[in-house]
Each structure stands twice: as C-alpha cells, then as structure tokens.
C-alpha cells in the first residue's frame, strides 16, 4: 500500500489500526452495555419517579450531538485508548438504556410476569429470572449497530485530533494526518484508512443483522 509521510508502512498501520479500533469499540460498547442494560431493566420495571428521572437524564445525553459530547469527554479525560473508550461509553449508554427499557416495559406486561408475582416472587427475582433474559434477546442487533457507529465516532474524534496520541495506529488519526498531503497527489495515505473505516462499519452492520437472524430464534427457543 505504500508508506505514509513518516515512512511507516501503511499496511501494517492498517492492521494495527484495526486493533486500536476494536479495542476502543470493545471498551466503549461493552461498558455502555454493562451500565445501560441493568439500569434500563430496573428503570423499566420499577417505573415511578426513579424511572422518570433516569429517562430525563438519558434523554438529555442522547439529545446531545454525539461527537460533540465525546469530544468534551475526551478533552476532559485526556488522550489514550482507554479514555476514548470511556467517551464512547458515555454516548452509548442512553441507547442501551432506551432499548432495554422499552423492551422491559413490554415484557413486564406479559402474563408470565404476572404469574411470577402471583407466586410470590419479589422484584429482584422477577427482574432476574423472568425479565432479563427475555429482554436480552433484543440486544444483539442494537449491539452491532452501535458498535459500527462507535467506530465512526472514534474515528471522528481522532480525526479532530482528540483522543489518541500520535503515533498510535488509528485510522481516524491517519486520515487526519494524511489530509494535508492530498493536494500533492498522495492519495493512498488517506484512501486506505478511509476505506478501512467503511469496511469495518458496514461489516459490523451486516454482522449484526446476520447475528440477529441466527441468534434470535435460538434465544427464543423456538421450535421451527
């Protein structure tokens, strides 16, 4: 693929860039899930004031333009892969919260939840044994979609010069650096990082859909 302005091999930067992106995504999205899912469950099930407050908070974060918010967090925390991951988390917690909460609201009305209560199950038992799993099955799709989106956001952050320090291999960073060389006809140092971002993003989206097709029937334990 050639080399960039500092003579580093593009190909290996692409590969390591993948690792960086996946690391960021892993931290960001997983953390968002670990926070958003339980909070969404509890909020959706218990309702009341707690729910109203949480929804307000989450909606506020959600309403904030993603990249801007991430940028603010990144500025605050400083640079580094882990910190970018945290910034991503902050943006995506509301998404997981919402999806989980919505699903919880509908699962909560199912007769088998009523049945559980009539058996004497306390709130925690109901949430854990009856609601959690049935809500979980709707998560895989959202997961991969937000993962794809996270990659874009992370790339955007790096492109803006926030988040990651040079010389960390990262596509967004490389894209940013390579901009200035476009006019001199050096297209490859911006092309490849760009393409890689697209491929990973689109690939994750497809993965999500395919995952849904396979996993959902399995998780729902359907016969046919």
């Amino acid at each position, binding site marked *: 693929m050639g080399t960039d302005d500092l003579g580093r091999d593009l190909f290996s930067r692409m590969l390591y860039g993948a690792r960086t992106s996946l690391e960021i995504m892993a931290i960001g999205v997983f953390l968002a899930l670990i926070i958003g899912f339980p909070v969404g469950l509890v909020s959706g099930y218990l309702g009341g004031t707690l729910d109203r407050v949480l929804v307000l908070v989450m909606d506020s974060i959600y309403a904030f333009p993603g990249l801007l918010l991430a940028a603010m967090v990144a500025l605050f925390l400083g640079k580094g892969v882990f910190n970018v991951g945290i910034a991503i988390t902050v943006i995506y917690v509301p998404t997981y919260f919402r999806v989980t909460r919505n699903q919880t609201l509908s699962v909560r009305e*199912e007769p088998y939840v009523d*049945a559980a209560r*009539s*058996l*004497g*199950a*306390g709130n925690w038992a109901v949430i854990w044994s009856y609601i959690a799993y049935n809500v979980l099955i709707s998560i895989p799709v959202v997961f991969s979609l937000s993962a794809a989106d996270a990659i874009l956001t992370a790339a955007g952050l790096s492109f803006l010069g926030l988040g990651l320090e040079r010389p960390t291999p990262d596509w967004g960073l490389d894209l940013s650096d390579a901009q200035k060389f476009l006019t001199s006809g050096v297209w490859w140092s911006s092309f490849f990082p760009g393409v890689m971002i697209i491929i990973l993003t689109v690939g994750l989206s497809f993965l999500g859909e395919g995952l849904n097709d396979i996993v959902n029937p399995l998780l*729902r334990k359907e016969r046919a």
Partner: protein
Amino acid sequence: MTGLEERSPPELGDEILRLDNVNVHFPVKMPFVQRLLQREEVVVHAVDGVSFSVRAGEILGLVGESGCGKTTVGRASVRLVNPTSGRIFFAGQDISKLGGRNLRVLRRKMQIIFQDPHASLNPAMTIGRAIGHPLWIHGAAFGLQNRGSEAFGKWVQQRVLSTMREVGLTPEGQLFDKFPGDLSGGQKQRAVIARALILGPSLLVVDEGVSMLDMSIRAKVLELMIDLKRHHGLTYLFITHDLAAAKFVCDRIAIMYLGRIVEIGPARDIYSDPKHPYTKALLQVIPIPDPDKRKEKVLPRGEVPDAVHPPSGCRFHPRCPAVLAACGWEGRDFVDFLDDHLSDPKQAGDESILGPIEGWRADGLVAMMKAEPENVEKAVERVKAILVGAPTAMTQAIASVSAQNRTVMLRFNPPNELRQTQVQDRVVECLLYQ
C-alpha cells in the same frame, strides 16, 4: 371419565374466602389537563360493590361476559390487584391491605391460574425450573435453611417430578428440561397447574382455565382439576364465560354483569330456573350442538356498555327485555332512543326539529336540547309524539317533558333502590323480585 351422576354436595368447611363490598376502580388514562376539567373522578368501574363468600371444598363459578369484572375479582382475591375499597378475608384474616412479607406468605395459600397457557410460562425457563421456582422463592418456609445447598436442590427436583406426575406431565424426566415452546397447549396448562399446586395452596383461582384449549382436550384438563381438588381438598374460584363448563364443574355460581353480581346461588338451581333476566338471556344463547334443537332467540338489545359510565339503577336496564319503569331510566336512555329513531328512515317523520342528535345533552335524569325560541314548543310536541312509540317502561318513567327558556327538557323519575333479594335458595339483584 368423570361423571356427574350422584354428585352429592361437597363436604364443606369454613368460609375460606370472603369479599365484602369490594370495589376495584381503575383510573382512566387521560391528559393531565383534561383530568383537571372533569367534575368527578373518571374511573373504570371494573368491580363495583361485589360481595360473596366461598367455603372450603366448594367450587364457586364466576360467570359473565367480557368486561363484567370477573377477572378483576379473581385478581383482587389473590391481591394481584388492590381493591379500591371494601374488604377481602382469607380464612378469617383481613388481607385487603396486606403488603410485603405478609403478602408473600399468603401467596403460598392461594394461587391463580391464568387464561392463556401459552403466555403464562416464561419462555426462557425450562418446565422443571418453572414449576420448581415457587419452592425456591419460598424456600425458607419449608424449614430448609440453606437454599444454596445441594440437598435443597435435590429436594426441589423431587417435588417437581412428583408434581409433574400428578398432573399427568409425563414422561416427567424428559419434559423436565423442555422449554414451553416445545410443549402442546394441554401440556402447558398442566405445567401451569403444577406450578400453582407445588406450594400446596388451599384456594385456587382459575381464570378461564380451559377456554384457550382445543375442545377435545378441555375435558382432560377439567378432569384433572376436579381430581386434584378431591385429592388435595382444594377450593376453587372458577372464572369463565363458558356457562356450560361452569354448570358441569361448579357447586355454586355467581353471574356478573358490568361489575356487579346479579344472581348467585346453587348452580343446579340457577340453571334450571334462572331468575335474573340477564341470566335467562345468557342461558338462552348458549349454542346447543344439536341441529334439531335450533330455536328462536330473544337477545338483549345492544352491547355491554362501557364501565366508565355505567347505567344508573340496574345496569342491565337499557337492554333488559323485562325492564320496568323504576329500573333506572335516565337522560342517556332517551338520547339513545332518539338516536335510534332519527337514524331509522322508516320511522323518522318531520324530525329535523329534534336533530341533530349532537344537540342533545344528557345529565343524570335529564335530557335536554337547546332550541330557537320559536321552535321550542313544537319540539316538545314532537318529543311527546315520538314517545308513543317508545318502550312502555321508559315512558312510564318520565316525570315531565317541558320547555324551559330556550331548552327542551325531558326529566325522568328517580329509580327505586336496587337491593339484593333472597329468592328461594339464591340471591338476586333485580326489581322484579323486590
């Protein structure tokens, strides 16, 4: 095959469940501002002053159409829904306001089986786990201290397997690890029954236990319920809209209409000699599976009105074929009658003066319409003319039709007070018997 033959009255124990003037009102969802504008509280009168008792060992049927409140009564009895007012007693103890731990303890003694077997089981739990779950929840109560111990786990498993055998969910070893999606409708309902029984309750509320099953397997599940009752000395509150099944299964039966019990007494007698007009109507419309027995049916007019604004007096009066003048006629009834009249091309004469129907307002016993001063007198005349063709009971209940300022006003007499009356061996709420 279970036979009715010489079904002697069951050995009845003490009163196990009693409802005392229970009301369950649900708030109607509406925008905040609109709620502020309402003069009185707008609620759904799901259950409106219901009282009855069930003795240990008997099967009381709660029968009625959808919207009559029977499901809500069932749910209130096991405190899945809180009564808005009134009291509920279980084995002599007032459970109307019970909460928290005490309520949990109560759950072991009374259970409810819901209508839809396909939706009553958690799709994510195996049958074995689902049936055993109540034991996990109430573990400490069984004297086994350590819920995490292997001994407890084994004990639960044994109990589950034996209960599965008892309800006919065999081969229990195989079915234990299956998920609800792998079971047939009948099997699912058996699993639901097993789960309800495993704690050893004394009262079982069955809400449409077999209505969603195919006919050819309903009998088996009903048989199972009857056998279990005998075996374990259970008491049932059997909620259904299926009058035929109720006749077969129940000792006593309560007919509900729009939140109230209209007739309650021994099943056999009510079926052979129904007193309340609504009971008569219900029994009449049950399809008989014999083509030679087709008959003309006299159906009550219209449909069950909404429970937010139930008719005054006797709630069945707008539809009752045997209605009297004192049954509860009110402004609304006249407006409905007029609406009918205006819509019928055959009957409507020069009615334009009384229309459109939206011009009429009903407020309690009064129905009124604003009119131009020159038309008011004529309108009053028209109303009186139309009333000739109205049901006698309604016209007899009218106190006056007059013109006041620019309004045509029709006023009804207030209804007689409706009371529960003892008629032979049952209680009926109907002015025909007062």
